[in-house]
């Protein structure tokens, strides 16, 4: 099936002024490639500060004015230009944000879902959308501060299904919810995918991502370092990048072993592999000039010069 979203070599740059004078281009997302088919949930997993939200904003065309984008984004086979993104957002492409702060605090929920329209048709659709997620008609009359955390999440999802969504970008839709509530919210994304929408699920929670996604893209300091099928995570030998394996080992059921060191902020890594400082098998060529390319490897992709070496290291570890 033709992918609904196809991102190739996307980089997002921010213009910064160093000490007030020197203009500097800061790459916060570097060389990102991604594909989502209709009915598929693709998770982008990365720590906070790794540039995940900017990915969402660049697809929607709502990046701040001091940024610019390189690379190509295709939507339903055609280039997603700024004009086209403007046309499609809120009609076919939907953002589902983190929480209640994304609702206008002084406007009733119903009015926000209806986006200022007042006709009967939109009233019917907004009521139906709320009902679908177990929210009564009285929810429309509430202000955001009167919603509980879980209700707010459902209102935000409902705001997408007043139309027929074809691409849903969920940016950390579950923080602050307990595991059961989070799973319930995620099951709504599965339903939307089963209805034929492509879902981009952005999260920092690998476990949650694995519970719902078909494909997992791992993000590290603004770069995608691995793309793997969810089933690859069943067994650590199937994983490709040292960081992904470190994440796997850090999961509670796999030993709970934390990785040494900290992740550099997106945009601060200039050359070579961003993981070099934390990688146990780092070689001299990993730190050399230029960016490590994303290569196909064992049915997925990986951004690593020595994936076999990593495998051997990890085999010795367990």
């Amino acid at each position, binding site marked *: 099936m033709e992918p609904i979203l196809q991102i190739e070599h996307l980089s997002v740059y921010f213009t910064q002024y160093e000490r007030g004078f020197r203009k500097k281009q800061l790459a916060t997302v570097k060389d990102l490639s991604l594909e989502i088919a209709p009915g598929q949930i693709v998770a982008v997993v990365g720590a906070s500060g790794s540039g995940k939200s900017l990915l969402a904003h660049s697809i929607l065309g709502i990046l701040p004015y001091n940024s610019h984008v390189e690379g190509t984004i295709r939507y339903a086979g055609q280039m997603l230009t700024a004009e086209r993104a*403007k046309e499609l957002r*809120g009609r076919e492409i939907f953002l589902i*944000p983190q929480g209640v702060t994304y609702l*206008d*605090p002084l*406007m009733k929920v119903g009015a926000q879902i209806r*986006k*200022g329209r007042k006709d009967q048709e939109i009233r019917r659709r907004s009521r139906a959308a709320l009902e679908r997620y177990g929210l009564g008609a009285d929810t429309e009359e509430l202000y955001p*501060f*009167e919603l509980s955390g879980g209700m707010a999440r459902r209102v935000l999802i409902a705001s997408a299904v007043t139309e027929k969504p074809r691409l849903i970008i969920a940016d950390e839709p579950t923080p602050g919810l307990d595991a059961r509530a989070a799973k319930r919210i995620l099951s709504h994304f599965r339903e939307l995918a089963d209805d034929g929408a492509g879902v981009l699920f952005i999260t920092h929670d690998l476990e949650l991502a694995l519970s719902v996604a078909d494909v997992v893209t791992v993000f590290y300091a603004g770069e995608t370092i691995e793309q793997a099928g969810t089933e690859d995570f069943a067994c650590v030998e199937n994983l490709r990048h040292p960081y992904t394996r470190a994440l796997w080992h850090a999961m509670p059921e796999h030993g709970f072993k934390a990785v040494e060191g900290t992740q550099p902020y997106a945009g601060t890594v200039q050359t070579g592999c961003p993981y070099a400082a934390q990688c146990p098998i780092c070689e001299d060529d990993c730190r050399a000039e230029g960016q490590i390319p994303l290569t196909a490897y064992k049915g997925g992709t990986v951004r690593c010069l020595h994936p076999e070496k990593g495998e051997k290291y990890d085999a010795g570890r367990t």
Partner: protein
Amino acid sequence: MKHRLQFTGKKLIRMILLLLGVSIVTFLLMCASPLDPLQTNVGQAALGTMSQEQIAKLEAYWGTDTPPLERYIGWLGDVLHGDFGTSLLYRQPVLTVIGQRLAGSFWLLLSAWVISGVLGLTMGVIAGACRGRWPDKLIKGYCLLISSTPAFWLAILLLLVFAVWLGWFPIGLSVPVGMDAAAVTAADRLRHAVLPALTLSITGVANIALHTREKMIDVLESDYVLFARARGESEASIVLRHGLRNVALPAITLQFASVSEIIGGSVLVEQVFSYPGLGQAAVTAGLGSDLPLLLGITVVTAAIVFAGNLIADLLYGVVDPKIRKGAARG
């Protein structure tokens, strides 16, 4: 309802304390004033030719021979009975003088207040929405220029350009000189009020516009505006539906807080335009050591300013759903 009553009660107690404090400070300042009321109002030469008895009589009239504490307590006791005393210069009850002067200033103050509020809000919203582009730069530049311009200087400038050079407006006063009071038309009064009102509006706009601009920028950078944008709302809809709504609350506070600035500004501006309003009376009373009148004016204006802030607080409760619903439940 109970909550609202409690709130109002607390505010009233605070207002009484405030008025008491203001009157004490005014009184102390007047006591410390180097102006000798006798010399100021009678004149050095006339004072020299007077007999001791005459001077003693005058001192009794101006009250300079009574100890300050006794004078203040006497004034306070009368005020509690509703008697603000008699103006020494105008020889009329203080409340009558204030009433006349306030009637003269009222439309001037009100129009300046409304114009600066509406204009300031509009300019602030436009500047915030166009942040960094030329409308923003223009408005910001104007506001910074105006806020660093003294009101009285601006008044003199307007007087010079529009009254002296161009001759479009009269040079001062609130009615034409030498005209029978009955013959004065509303148009005459309006023509006389234009320049002072304009001065007050021009200076009042800057503060409101700059504050509104900041708030507008905050709103436009908020999560909910990002989400509105992501849902395909147009920039115009974002500014009008979300921007105005969220700027309205601080704007109300700002607008009512600016009552004090308008009244403060009117003192200088009325002086420049010889406009017979409350501000001018305050200057006359201060320079002429007319203690009862000055105390009356400070207390009344303080009450007006306080009332402005109180209205803002109450309106806040009506406009903000969090406070409104919280109050309804409590």
